[in-house]
């Protein structure tokens, strides 16, 4: 079957099987920033935006995206520059495998909350697992990003 999706601002017609998940379809289309880590919607590395809402693409049937817009990490390259910087300067990108998905969740958090508290930030991002960083520096990065990114690394 064929579906029409707007991916990162470009209209695409894609041939899919009814049981294809969006993560696989996007990867086949070359959006390699969409990672696969768990197959059970429980690690967050495949996070994308579907009609501007953060979703887990490994648990979203591709057919469900028909007629909708999809944003992947490749589609927020410019927008994510500052959060990338905040993460990288603290070294909390580490292996990087969870990075794109986490950034997609951070951008969603930024859009739907105002002045979130630490626990709100943690709650919004809790589905994005990271085994390397221990989350401490990532929280600092998110806070600094939301405050405008002027804070230096605190030791």
């Amino acid at each position: 079957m064929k579906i029409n999706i707007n991916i990162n601002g470009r209209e695409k017609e894609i041939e899919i099987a009814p049981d294809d998940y969006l993560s696989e379809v996007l990867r086949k289309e070359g959006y390699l920033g969409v990672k696969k880590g768990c197959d059970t919607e429980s690690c967050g590395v495949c996070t994308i935006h579907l009609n501007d809402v953060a979703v887990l693409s490994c648990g979203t049937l591709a057919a469900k995206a028909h007629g909708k817009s999809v944003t992947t990490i490749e589609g927020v390259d410019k927008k994510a520059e500052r959060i990338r910087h905040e993460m990288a300067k603290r070294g909390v990108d580490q292996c990087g495998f969870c990075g794109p998905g986490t950034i997609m969740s951070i951008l969603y958090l930024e859009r739907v909350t105002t002045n979130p508290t630490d626990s709100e930030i943690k709650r919004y991002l809790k589905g994005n697992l990271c085994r390397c960083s221990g989350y401490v520096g990532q929280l600092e990065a998110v806070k600094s990003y939301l405050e405008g990114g002027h804070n230096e690394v605190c030791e």
Partner: protein
Amino acid sequence: MKYVNDSIKKIDSDALLRGKGVYTDDLSPKDALWIKVVRSPHAFAKILTVDDRLTMRVPGVEMVLTYKDIKRIPFTRAGQNYPEFSPYDKFILDEYVRHVGDDVAIVVAENEKSAEMGAKRLKVDYEVLEPLLDFTIAEGHSTLVHPEEDNFIPVDSAGYQREKNLAGEIGFDIGDIDEALEQSDVVIRTTYESQAQAQSMMETQRAFSYEDVYGRLVVVSATQVPFHLRRTLARALDLPMSKIRVIKPRIGGGFGSKQSVHAEVYPALVTKLTGKPSKIVYTRKEVFKGTTSRHKMRFEVTLGATKDGDLLGIKMNGLSDTGAYGEHANTTMGTTGKKVMPIYNKVKASSFHGKAVYTNNLPGGAFRGYGVTQGTFALESAMNELAEKLKMDPVKLRERNMIKKGETTPLYNLIREGLPPEPVYMNSCELEACVKRGKERFQWDERNRRIEREKDFLKKKGKARGTGMAIAQQGSGLPKVDMAGATIKLNDDGFFTLLVGATDLGTGCDTILSQIAADALEVSMDKINIHAADTDLSPFDSGAYASSTTYTSGNAVIEACRKMRVLITEYAAKVLEEDEEDVSFQQGKILTSAGKELSLEEFSKVITYSLVYEQLTATGSFVPKIPVPPYMAGFAEVEVDLDTGKVELLDFVGAVDCGTAINPALARVQAEGGIVQGIGLALFEDVNVSSKGKLKNNSFMQYKIPARNDLHRIQIELIEGHDDTGPFGAKAIGEIVVNTPSPAIIEAICQAAGVRIRSLPATPEKVWKAMNNRHYVPEK
């Protein structure tokens, strides 16, 4: 410009965070055949027949391979230095399956879905055997996990006895332990057990392979050990090592899981047989049931001390469950003894004995901390019991007995055979500073007073708080075992190519080694292009394990750069027609005593294109000569819910001595990440099997790793230290950081709720049952 000790951004961070296709699966050829492994539903069985008729009817399926199709060659997946201290007890495929999830057959198809469907339709008949699941009765049990007789271990003295289910045994005694215990006023005898823990890196095991233009087998893999992988594949596939090339791209974490050789054998085999490119990507479920986890271990600890708190003797007897295969069985147990015991160097006697037994549980393997985590949990928990019995501050008990700067113990000479007999002095040991600064940062005394004050108030709310602490050490690489090479090449515009075999698995070692090279050559970092790792191009490196990279590979880089500086001076003297003594290479420039100056750009162009016609290349190699342990002190405060047994870790302070931090931001993240893995070990992570050996938790839904909202405050104190043998004074940090959370947290729970949890993890159920005086029996 200095780069060492500066928090430089990781040089690959932009590519990683922008989602570039830089990991193994991103790079796999579009036409690669997909491989799926058919896995055993039984903990122990013999394969009788395999019927692949239905599988072969699935459109797209190309072939099915069982043990009958593969040459029988025993090998070990351990991915260790050669010869391995691990038994050669694995076959690519075998007629016996020894744990639920063990490999039965592989199905190869044009695409993933066909391979999956084909695997589902494979009909396998088994003779189901009674599994051996209880590791406490495994030694000498009538059920033999490895009945086959072609297994062997390539080294002496590792204690391997297949016919007794023993995968490894280790022991040493210094002094007379019985006498030391007899002379003690206080003796603690206690037992601690730690569970199997899953490494849980975000990127699962994956690999692809293809034949190159010369017909050689190229394997691209998310591996921590490219060179050990090449050697292991050569043996398992019966190919000359020269016909195999291993390339490591970016890796999505490993923590030891990717030290073992798992997924790679299948695509390598399929490409060898078909000549076609092939790939495998493990599902998360397969990682849980088809790879390895931290060895479950139990230690009986006996401590003897005077009434003033002077430790006289330590005795540890350990038992490790290596599961179905013996990879890392002997070495994790050995590491436990040799890296846990020396921290208390003032004892009159030490005795350590440990065995690792086969069972039909999931195989144990390498996991950050590598036995030291398990042993530290047992010994430090026993020390906390001793402090309680002596009514002594646990910090004071540590300060009285722990190793201090400049001191030694003969135990350090045991770490590796072949080390010199002279005492090894811990000249860079900052453990005292770790304890002092950690205590201050944690406000140990003030906090304990505050908790005492608020006790009744909290109790009314059904809560109780407590604190605990622990100390630990680890290693920096393996002395006289694991070596690293580094090659540096001067290019024709004054920049360098740095070739290393070291494996950046997310730790940032490509960045750290570039920082080291830039400072060693006194050039700016943009003049260093690092390349790692490719067994065709990189010099040998044992790989990323045993906390080795910064120390071992870093020293190799320094040696290569030292040689390069000599070469530059020598050739600059030729170009400038000066005596070598009158030429120097400083701050990236060639200077003569007469005041002439030549830039590296000009020099490299001249020697390449006009005058000397010489490619300057230098290689350095390094193997650690002595143990260089990093140290740590950890402090925890918990709140226990007295109604439910739930434990919240409110605060954790980790003070770490890693010598010079080459990159303080990355060192700090290592500490934070390792501590959080230790918290998971202490409180909830548990690879759990049913009475039939079936895994109960094979996804992140059931196997919980720490998420953001599980954590409160974590504070890191990096102690400024300097080790003269390390690159710019650096020691390791990778593993040490995972060791202190579990004993510190268990002690804090004990101080809060009055119950001592002796088997990890301290789940609410266990804590509640202990508080309610009900003996905890693990659910079968």
